[in-house]
């Protein structure tokens, strides 16, 4: 045995699977939220495999996830105000805090150093160190008479900013956190009644809040914030009675195809096609239910739509070439969320009532795989780490 071979043998022993559980990259991993058990599974999107289950994440009846820019950590925002930092390499909760009584979502800053959480109770935004989860800033959403508003539609924006909407107050606020100890807040009042969620354009140019309490959407041009917030589609559905909404639509992710933005209508079984140059309605596509998520495949050739109860067994694929309906899929019961692989050849779909995640090939629309998951309600892939507004 030569010296080199001996050295190699020793090295092999040192770095064998016995001492390292698994040499794991995180770029093709994801997290599937299991709403009732307060757990999440870590999945590999290339191998369609569940790698681990992480427990003790609290009430996840509503949950969302952002990722650290090194794609090692997933930050889970739970309904109960819990903020949990999961280590995807070690399959464990690195740290968990309960920062409020009732939360709806969160965001990570442009530089990856800050985590912001939007809260219903107490209404406002709290900002934490992404590293330690130590509190950095507290921004109560105070409005008329000193009341606190529920905060929705929180996203990151270029320029180390966060943007969010105040449900009760009908306002949009931007917060510059270049100096996190002294956040600079800009408020836009009177944007419309009851903004329920918002979306950020993938280039960080526009922030758009959907309104529940009156027609239309509220648009903030972040390149020209001095122009203020303007209303788009102010007359859409104005004279028609709204259909009941059994689940609020989510505007996360911006479905842009060419010059068009696709968004869920609210109180109408339609997907709206909006020209993003003129901000005029081009078309309202009739769909079989109240749309919840309207999400573009990363190449934007397809838009996938799921629906509120009682139509939540369906999944619609729209061809953006001509805005025609490609196919109505019925993957199972309780279609709550979907997530595309980073370049969009597949999509993962959460089937809450079937305790499964189903994977589709987006070209053939054929099922590729099914994985067990307990009451899954949200799927988040690490590719989000490098996308503005997610």
């Amino acid at each position, binding site marked *: 045995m030569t010296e080199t071979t001996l050295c190699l043998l020793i090295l092999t022993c040192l770095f064998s699977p016995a001492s390292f559980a698994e040499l794991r990259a995180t770029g093709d991993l994801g997290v599937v939220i299991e709403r*009732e058990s307060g757990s999440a599974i870590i999945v590999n999107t290339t191998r369609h495999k569940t790698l681990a289950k992480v427990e003790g994440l609290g009430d*996840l*009846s*509503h949950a969302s996830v952002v990722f650290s820019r090194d794609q090692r950590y997933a930050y889970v925002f739970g309904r*109960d105000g819990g903020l949990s930092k999961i280590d995807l390499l070690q399959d464990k909760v690195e740290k968990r805090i309960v920062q409020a009584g*009732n939360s709806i979502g969160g965001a990570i800053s442009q530089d990856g150093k800050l985590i912001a959480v939007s809260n219903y109770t107490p209404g406002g935004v709290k900002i934490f160190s992404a590293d330690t989860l130590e509190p950095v800033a507290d921004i109560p959403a105070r409005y008329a008479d000193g009341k606190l508003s529920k905060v929705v539609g929180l996203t990151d924006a270029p320029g180390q900013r966060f943007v969010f909407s105040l449900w009760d107050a009908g306002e949009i606020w931007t917060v510059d956190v270049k100096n996190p100890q002294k956040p600079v807040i800009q408020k836009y009042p009177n944007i419309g009644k009851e903004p329920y969620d918002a979306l950020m354009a993938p280039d960080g140019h526009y922030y758009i809040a959907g309104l529940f309490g009156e027609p239309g959407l509220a648009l903030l041009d972040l390149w020209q914030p001095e122009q203020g917030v303007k209303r788009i589609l102010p007359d859409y559905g104005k004279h028609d009675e709204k259909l009941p909404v059994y689940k*609020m639509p989510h505007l996360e992710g911006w479905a842009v195809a060419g010059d068009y933005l696709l968004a869920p209508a609210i109180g109408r079984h339609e997907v709206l096609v909006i020209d993003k140059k003129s901000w005029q309605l081009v078309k309202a596509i009739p769909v079989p239910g109240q749309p919840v998520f309207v999400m573009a495949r990363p190449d934007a050739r397809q838009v996938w739509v799921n629906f509120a109860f*009682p139509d939540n067994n369906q999944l619609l694929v729209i061809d953006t070439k001509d805005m025609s309906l490609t196919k109505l899929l019925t993957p199972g019961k309780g279609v709550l969320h979907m997530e595309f692989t980073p370049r969009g050849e597949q999509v993962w779909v959460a089937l809450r*009532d079937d305790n499964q995640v189903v994977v589709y090939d987006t070209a053939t629309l054929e099922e590729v795989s099914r994985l067990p998951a307990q009451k899954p309600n949200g799927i988040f892939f690490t590719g989000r780490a490098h996308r503005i507004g997610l």
Partner: protein
Amino acid sequence: MTGKLLPLLLVALPAAGGEISAERQQALRDLLKQDCGACHGLTLKGGMGPALLPETLAGKSDDFLADTILNGRPGTAMPPWQPFMNRDEALWLIGILRTKPN
């Protein structure tokens, strides 16, 4: 596929009389947890909608709560659940809410 859709149909079709079968009770419990829970929280401590805990409902009559469930609350995000349950079933759900949150 038919088998998978059956529970949804059970939710969608209200029972006719006052008797609520065990199967229907389970469907209503699922509806409460999943669909009411979407706004009121899985633990019913509230979210977009208010908390539905025994103490928060204490001062409100069965009639008022049944009307709220069946007809919704105009001007708020609460939709009418009339297409999916009858009054007896709404009252049964209120009974569940008044005794234990889950």
